[in-house]
């Protein structure tokens, strides 16, 4: 019976089967197992702790509320990362549309026009949350990752932090295998270039 099962050592497929039987403990174990990997992926993509928590929460709610639709031939982690990546990319696209340049209109031609269209933000002290984010994502490599395109970030995180194969990444992100390979090679190249000055 479920309460006596050692859920911590249970494979993902068995855990999902228990969740499909309505075992709340199995839901909690899925959450415990993947909250950090999913949150890390999203946090490194959006670089804002609060937003990352909201997006990770959305991802888990989507997965857990539709656990009955899970197909065993697909890895649970791949399904989770796929949804997390989609949620993060959607957010970034939406944010990109909503973003107003603080450096003035791109159509401005003269210094006066640039000044007239620029937005000034009052200097403010770093909040506790920002301080924590800086501590977490402030290292040279994290700053270099921040400069990557979101697609590159997802690929490089899945490859190196999660240890996924190229094939798994291709399935997870719905990309051709060759594209995944290209993204990872380009991402590594960009990271090496960005980190070069810090190594000298």
């Amino acid at each position, binding site marked *: 019976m479920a309460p006596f099962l050692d859920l911590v050592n249970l494979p993902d497929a068995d855990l999902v089967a228990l969740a499909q039987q309505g*075992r709340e403990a199995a839901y909690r174990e899925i959450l415990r197992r993947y909250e950090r990997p999913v949150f890390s992926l999203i946090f490194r993509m959006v670089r804002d702790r609060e937003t990352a928590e909201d997006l990770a929460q959305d991802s888990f709610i989507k997965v857990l509320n539709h656990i009955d639709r899970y197909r065993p031939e697909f890895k649970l982690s791949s399904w989770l990362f796929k949804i997390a990546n989609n949620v993060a990319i959607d957010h970034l696209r939406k944010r990109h549309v909503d973003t107003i340049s603080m450096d003035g209109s791109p159509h401005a031609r003269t210094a006066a026009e640039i000044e007239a269209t620029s937005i000034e933000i009052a200097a403010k002290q770093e909040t506790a949350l920002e301080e924590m984010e800086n501590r977490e994502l402030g290292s040279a490599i994290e700053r270099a990752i921040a400069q990557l395109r979101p697609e590159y970030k997802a690929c490089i995180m899945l490859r190196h932090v999660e240890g996924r194969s190229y094939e798994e990444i291709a399935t997870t992100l719905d990309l051709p295998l060759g594209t995944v390979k290209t993204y990872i090679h380009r991402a590594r190249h960009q990271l090496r270039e960005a980190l070069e000055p810090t190594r000298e």
Partner: protein
Amino acid sequence: MEHRHLLPDEFEDILDGDGGDHAPALREHLDTCAECKAELTRRSELSRELEHLPHLGPAPLFSYRVMSQVQVFEPWHVALRDSVRRLVPQTKAARWIAGVTAVMIATVMTMAGIWAALNTESAWLFAEVGVKRVRAGVLGSIKGALETVFGRDALNALEGTGVTGTLVAASIVVGVILVAAIGFRVVALASRRRRS
């Protein structure tokens, strides 16, 4: 093997433990070429650094927030199975005792069933006597209760009205109980609303 330096993609393939059919030749070249070896070391540093990136954790109440919005759906057959399992004793000894008791009861019931089937007349007689006794017992209890609550005179009056009168009186009593229960519920709800 041609003695040329490795191409960027070939370095990446070697780092990924790939390289296809060319892998042995590429490794052979790496063993002899200090320049390519140094480049591979430089590239592998990044991979090592990336692999050591930590998993970052959400706030402590994250899982609670998620679970509060997740609907755990338990299929009916699982709920039924669980209910049955809850009735089974936990310890082995208790399960044995329950099993032996169940077997004994089943045996007695089966024997009684067989005896009743073989002795139909006696079974009917026993059944009739049993029903009469139960009926007399139940009626006696009800009469006793009514006499205690309403008095002897009320009971006599009720007996005088026959079955119809008894049914009407019973309906009135049930109605009063229902009205009282609904009234108490309304009062309780109003009181709770006031408190919140």
